[in-house]
């Protein structure tokens, strides 16, 4: 039997506000335990939440970028459960009336045809703290760190529209890209800034009714997402084909082993007893607020890509890579403003900037030791024939290492290309004189030896000879 995969994703994105969602404490990562806390996020008796307006701004932007409807009135609700990292015994979230609904993101299906993945809802909520378990074996205690408690999250819930791992990955990548573009989330999955729960089921191809789903928690990288879906799909298919039944349950993804493990069944599922939080008034969003947010939206990834293709005549691959982050796209455009050769700029970014960023583990090109003017200056020198492309590679490395402009490096290191015919002619003559056998060979028809002569001349000139001139002179002397 042919089986069809059905996936819906719940993505939790941590928002980049300076302060927490319901109090003024800092959201910064890595502080000593329980130092970014106050009566509100500690859940002390008598403390009350006050909504951070910036969280709403961010949510509205995300909604607009994912084609959602912004609710004129939404409500916060309490999700009640006991856990030591949850100081109030409930999480303030949204339930019946979320701020955003009915959105979608476009992806390509496995056949390459465009399709929309529906977004059911996006809501705001607070994060819990975290438990720090002691390393001593058999310890009968754990520590609670509440720095993260009350940090703002968006939960983005997709429709069960995803039919393949490819679609799932594209959806999450697109979502991540949008969040990062909007500057509302840093998108760092390994630090937990984006966390994914996947609802996975299978059904016989052609069947309309959904199969029973399992919710997979703790999927925290693209690789894990792919592995979890494949593992779970196969597990469910095997189970059914062996005459078993998929049960509705929550399963945990074990990234080390690449498998999912049962966590709790439907019967053990919590009854969260959601009800509207009486400490927070209904959130009313007037049109002006939405329009103000719309005015601050940057050009979104898809629009930028398509503009890069047409405005700069770039191939899809280049446009895709350059537009993966707004910083890189801006970096590219600045180079082009200074030196109008988009393809050359793109080549240097894709070939060298990205290589060195990855080597130095830089997240943003803004953190790189060079600026667009470095690259543009270097391209100017190449175009003017001052340096060759080959020398330019050394110049690039030197710029990256020192942060100096290309011109300065070329001057300091005496890398200026030799374009003086008589000087090159002298070297060519020396090379030809030193290699009589090869000269004879060439003249006897081994024209492939041209590469050898060019190499020797370049070596003798320490790479500075103008390659065009070298070729021209060699040719005329060997064949003339």
């Amino acid at each position, binding site marked *: 039997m042919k089986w069809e995969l059905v996936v819906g994703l719940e993505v939790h994105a941590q928002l980049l506000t300076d302060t927490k969602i319901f109090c003024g404490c800092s959201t910064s990562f890595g502080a000593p335990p329980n130092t970014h806390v106050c009566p509100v996020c500690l859940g002390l008796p008598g403390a009350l939440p006050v909504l951070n307006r910036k969280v709403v701004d961010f949510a509205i932007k995300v909604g607009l970028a994912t084609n959602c409807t912004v609710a004129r009135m939404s409500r916060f609700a309490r999700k009640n459960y006991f856990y030591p990292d949850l100081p109030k015994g409930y999480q303030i979230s949204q339930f019946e009336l979320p701020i955003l609904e009915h959105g979608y993101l476009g992806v390509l299906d496995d056949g390459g045809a465009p399709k929309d993945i529906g977004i059911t809802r996006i809501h705001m909520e607070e994060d819990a703290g975290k438990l720090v378990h002691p390393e001593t074996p058999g310890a009968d205690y754990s520590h*609670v760190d509440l720095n993260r408690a009350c940090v703002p999250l968006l939960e983005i819930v997709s429709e069960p529209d995803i039919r393949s791992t490819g679609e799932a990955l594209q959806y999450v990548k697109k979502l991540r890209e949008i969040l990062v573009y909007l500057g509302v989330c840093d998108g760092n999955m390994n630090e937990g800034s984006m966390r994914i729960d996947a609802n996975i089921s299978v059904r016989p191809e052609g069947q309309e009714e959904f199969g029973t789903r399992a919710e997979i928690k703790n999927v925290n990288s693209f690789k894990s997402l792919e592995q979890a879906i494949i593992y779970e799909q196969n597990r469910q298919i095997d189970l059914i084909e062996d005459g078993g039944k998929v049960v509705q349950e929550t399963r945990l993804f074990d990234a080390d082993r690449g498998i999912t493990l049962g966590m709790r069944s439907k019967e053990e599922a919590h009854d969260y007893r959601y009800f509207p939080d009486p400490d927070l008034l209904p959130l009313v969003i007037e049109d002006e607020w939405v329009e103000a947010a719309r005015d601050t939206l940057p050009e979104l990834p898809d629009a930028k890509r398509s503009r890069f293709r047409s405005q700069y005549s770039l191939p899809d691959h280049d446009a895709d890579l350059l537009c993966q982050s707004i910083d890189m796209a801006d970096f590219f455009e600045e180079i082009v403003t200074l030196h109008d050769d988009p393809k050359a700029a793109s080549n240097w970014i894709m070939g060298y900037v990205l290589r060195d960023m990855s080597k130095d583990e830089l997240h943003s090109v803004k953190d790189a030791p060079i600026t667009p003017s470095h690259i543009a200056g270097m391209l100017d020198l190449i175009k003017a024939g001052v340096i060759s492309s080959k020398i330019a590679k050394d110049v690039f490395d030197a710029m990256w290492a020192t942060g100096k402009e290309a011109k300065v490096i070329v001057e300091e290191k005496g890398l200026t290309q030799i374009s003086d015919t008589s000087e090159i002619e002298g070297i060519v003559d020396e090379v030809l004189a030193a290699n009589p056998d090869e000269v004879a060979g060439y003249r006897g028809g081994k024209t492939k030896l041209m590469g050898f002569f060019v190499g020797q001349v370049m070596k003798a000139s320490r790479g500075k000879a103008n390659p065009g001139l070298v070729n021209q002179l060699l040719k005329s002397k060997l064949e003339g």
Partner: protein
Amino acid sequence: MSSELTLKKGHELRALLDGGEVSSVEVARAFLDRIDEIDSKINAFLTVTADLALEQAEAADKRIREGRVKPLTGIPVGLKDLLVTKGVRTTCASRILENFIPPYDGTVVAKLREAGAVFPGKLNMDEFAMGSSNENSAFGPVKNPWDLERVPGGSSGGSAASVAACEVPLALGSDTGGSIREPASFCGIVGVKPTYGRVSRYGLIAFASSLDQIGPMTRDVKDAALVLDAICGHDPKDSTSIMKEATDFAGALSGDIKGVRIGVPKEYFVEGLDPEIERAVKDAIAKLEELGAEVKEVSLPHTEYAVAVYYLLATAEASSNLARFDSVRYTTRVDGSDLIDTYKKTRAAGFGEEVKRRIMLGTYALSAGYYDAYYRRAQRVRTLIARDFAEAFKEVDVICSPTVASVAFKHGEKTSDPLEMYLSDIFTIPLNLAGLPGLSLPCGFSGEGMPIGLQMMAGPFREEVLLKTAYAFEEATDFSRVPGL
């Protein structure tokens, strides 16, 4: 001198302090002596903070000398023990918070400190404000100063008893379903429940967040107005606090109530109402008419559903509000075999019977499959009750009724029947559901000499007309008395 001082009301002490006739320290000493002398009889205080009070009194004297006086500077104010006080144990009269010393002040407490008020201590109450008799305190019941065999009412029983017994001139209580008005009525004092949102709840340990409101408990209306002026106002730390300008209720007590329209709700004069109370309240209404008010009958048709609605919504909110008392951080902990067992043991040992009963009720009302039938439906009826008041207040300015259907009952009389106890609040609960302001003030005594309370209610943010009407009545009558303890 000292015992005479404790007979003074807040505004009388103000005059003495401003005139330099007494010092704040002398006032504080007088009241601390009084507490020392009689509190063992009534058990109104859970914590006496004599050192703090004297320190504050000295600072107040300095302010008075420097001319930086606010209306409450140097005047003792008792605090119900659900108001969070920095550095001073705050128990909610519960074992589970027996050793909780808050690291912060609630907004109202901070405002009073700022105004130079003096804090003699924290007052007994029903545990987590759940009760109508103050018999639910983990630290023993409060006795009614008029008759030690009787209850003072609840949940602000300690606040009411301490003011009636002249242990403090002023106190703060909180009112979720009548918890200020009912004990004020039982103890023969004035108690005001402000409009929801008028007074910040930041630092009030929540029972039912959509209903709770802090208010004054005093010996007369003028004092209530003074305290209200000091504690009202928008607070950015409480999202449900309303943007309103500073109030001057004390300045609005003209004594003139000509043309004030008084409504008498027929649903509040029904079978089961003590005839002595009915007579006293009707006499009071006649008195108001005599003073120039216009009286007419009004109807609040959904009154009979109020208690049921209240015990669904208030318990639902409470079940969630009390979840934070989980032994992980500040609560008393009873260790169990694992985490869940620790939760269970801690909460089983830490909460009293009534609190557990209400947590269970509320948890049930919010449970999957019951939410629509109970919680959601109760919210709808709540809207109808609020609409009743909105209609009535198109016709009248103030609605008058008995505060409670009986005078203070005896200890133990209703403890075996929670439902009967819940009915103590039938006249006070509707107002909380509608979020409106109300007060109780003395309007007579029963044959056995127990105080009777008159409830006045008004539309949203109409505390001024409420206080003005109450003041006129108080001026024209003589029911504000001190029990002979």
